[in-house]
């Protein structure tokens, strides 16, 4: 593949996710500059940064949900298009209409649709897989509930189950612990740690700095560009946090505005 060959020699071709010089722009206004990063395998990776730092944007650009202005991404050395089966995605809970007329089990089954393929119907076996995933997140009792009747935490667990049923190697999760109760957050983190121990790579957008060092063993500190990336012990320092959260870079921001003009 052309893209995989073109990945710079400094990038390992076996990294689960390797992002090479990626810049992302909304309506020509850059929101993420020159992200260059190799994710290590089998790690629980936290992506932290202030509001508007481009955390969700980074995930979405990696998954081709929004166009990249420049740069390339490879998943185990190949472009994402050819590796979709290896990747699961948990979008932010607010992005969907929870009044949609489906049951929790239906939503989880959607995780299998990619494997089922065009026009083929969902079978009993797929439903069983979905049920097993629901059981794993402790939601088996709610399988036949209409999704609007679930609490925020329960909805989030349904989303997690949908990602689990994808049986991927890499998991991208956009704020799975936002707006959930403490018990759910704990359950989620336990689940993520389970995934890590079976050598999956998990990238999680996270907003609560207090819990960062407990949850993650690898961090990306993001604010319009990568401020620091590395093992939590190395990069979770006062200095880096100050650089990340100490306000937006005024000049970079203005430059972005100028480009958009």
């Amino acid at each position, binding site marked *: 593949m052309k893209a995989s060959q073109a990945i710079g020699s400094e990038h390992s071709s076996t990294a689960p996710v390797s992002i090479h010089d990626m810049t992302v722009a909304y309506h020509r206004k850059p929101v993420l500059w020159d992200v260059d990063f190799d994710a290590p395998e089998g790690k629980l990776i936290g992506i932290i940064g202030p509001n508007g730092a481009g955390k969700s944007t980074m995930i979405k650009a990696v998954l081709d949900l929004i166009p990249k202005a420049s740069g390339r991404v490879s998943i185990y050395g190949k472009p994402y298009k050819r590796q979709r089966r290896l990747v699961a995605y948990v979008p932010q809970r607010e992005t969907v209409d929870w009044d949609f007329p489906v049951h929790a089990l239906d939503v989880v089954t959607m995780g299998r649709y990619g494997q089922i393929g065009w026009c083929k119907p969902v079978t009993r076996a797929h439903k069983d897989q979905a049920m097993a995933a629901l059981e794993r997140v402790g939601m088996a009792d709610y399988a036949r509930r*209409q999704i609007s009747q679930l609490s925020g935490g329960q909805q989030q667990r349904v989303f997690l189950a949908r990602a689990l049923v994808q049986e991927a190697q890499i998991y991208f999760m956009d704020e799975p612990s936002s707006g959930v109760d403490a018990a759910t957050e704990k359950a989620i983190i336990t689940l993520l740690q389970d995934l890590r121990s079976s050598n999956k790579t998990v990238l999680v957008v996270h907003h609560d700095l207090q819990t960062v060092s407990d949850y993650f063993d690898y961090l990306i500190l993001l604010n319009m560009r990568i401020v620091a990336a590395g093992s939590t012990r190395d990069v979770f320092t006062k200095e880096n946090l100050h650089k990340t959260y100490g306000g937006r870079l005024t000049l970079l921001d203005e430059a972005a505005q100028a480009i958009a003009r």
Partner: protein
Amino acid sequence: MRAILNVWGCAGMRKTQNLSTPTRPYFHTPILSLLFLIVVTLFFVPVQAEAEIDSIRSITDTRLQMPTWDQLIRVLTLRDYNTRVVVLGTLFLGSASGVIGTFMFLRKRALVGDAASHAALPGIGLAFIVMASVGGDGKYLPGLLLGAFISGLIGMGFILLIRHFTRLKEDAALGIVLSVFFGLGISILGVIQKMNIGHAAGLESFIYGKTASMLAQDAYLMGGAALVVTLLCGLLFKEFSLLCFDQDFACSQGWPVLFLDTLIMALVVAVTVMGLQAVGLILMVALLIIPPAAARFWTHHLYKMIFISAAIGSASGLLGAALSALVPRLPAGAIIVLITSSIFLMSLVFGPARGVLSRSIEQWTLNRKVASQHLLRAMYEWAEIHKNTQKSDDPLKGMTIRDLFGVRSWSHKQLKRILLRAQRQGMIYRGGDRTYHFTENGEWQSKRVVRNHRLWELYLVTHADIAPSHVDRDADQIEHVLERSMVDKLEKLLLSEHPNIGVIPPSPHDIGSKGLKQRSRK
């Protein structure tokens, strides 16, 4: 162009006036002229109806010809081959639009159908010009519909382009495309009238719809296309529902979101174009939106919603086409819309999933449950106080109505009703001296209610840091809706922290008669 709206009605009027004017000079006195007016009015109706039989009807002309009994029977029993085919065709159309409309509705693009139908009009005009100028039959239906389909697709393309290349939102894009294409279509129809090619009269029936003019072969075309659309929706059910629920997730799995979106739009255009002849372009959108909106009141499940929506659509199509065959002066589109909206209203009221009635019944049942639980708790707490203060041997001794009034703020009528109901349910019985006592069942129930209330109060005090004097009212609202699983969790949590609270935990606040009175004043 002769008219889109009102000219034929006026033309008919002019004819009848010509008939009546010569008689006028013979009457001079006011009374006579009044009599004359009455006579003329009596004449007026049949004469004009006759005059209009071969002229084309207008939308504002509302006089109806009631069907004869014979006609009614013929249509209802589908005895005519043509009627039968047209009614069945409209039925298939209704079901197809119900199905694709559901996806449109869930994709929150309900108005795209409206834009699609309006965008089809220029295509009809242009197709007519092309077909007539090459010497063919200008009104060859498949040709006209093909033109409409292409122009509808172009309209959809413009919506996508406007959305993609400008920062305008979808509603603006819809509005622009709808009005521009409709205006263009009207102008083209006007040009056709001037050009004097072919026999252009009747093209306007696409605007309001006219089942009466449909032939069996038109209906076959319509039914066939509707079947194809329904089949495609069945095949792509999984893909469409995923797209409608979570576009980003679908995209991350590699589904071609833009293609699926365009496909849905194309199917909407196809259904719309097929419906132009029967329903007309202005009202076609109703057949796309109202059935799914009504179906949503009946179910929380997408499968069922699609079937119900299809059923509502086909019922409307069937009835609309039949009625329109009976009363040919009524535009079919209008009848179909009226029928769909009556079904919608019925669903709004009677729909079991979220209809007004089922919600009120739920609320009513809850209110009754709450009232009787209030009674049980009031009686239990009253007994509890009197056990403490009067050291009576019988902790649950009889309680009079007056005692109960001191406990909560209920009206006399209300309390009587609640007491009667509780008696009927075997919770309490009436002893001597007009006192009320718990039955065994009632006592058990009351303990459960009080226990839930107290547990919840305890939880609010110890975990949510709410002042003990305030928790009573909060717990009051929550305790009645507590599910079994929540009570279990609550018990597990509190029992681990307070191992010796007993079956009925003590109240965290004063429930002495004073406290009770205070509460009743709230």
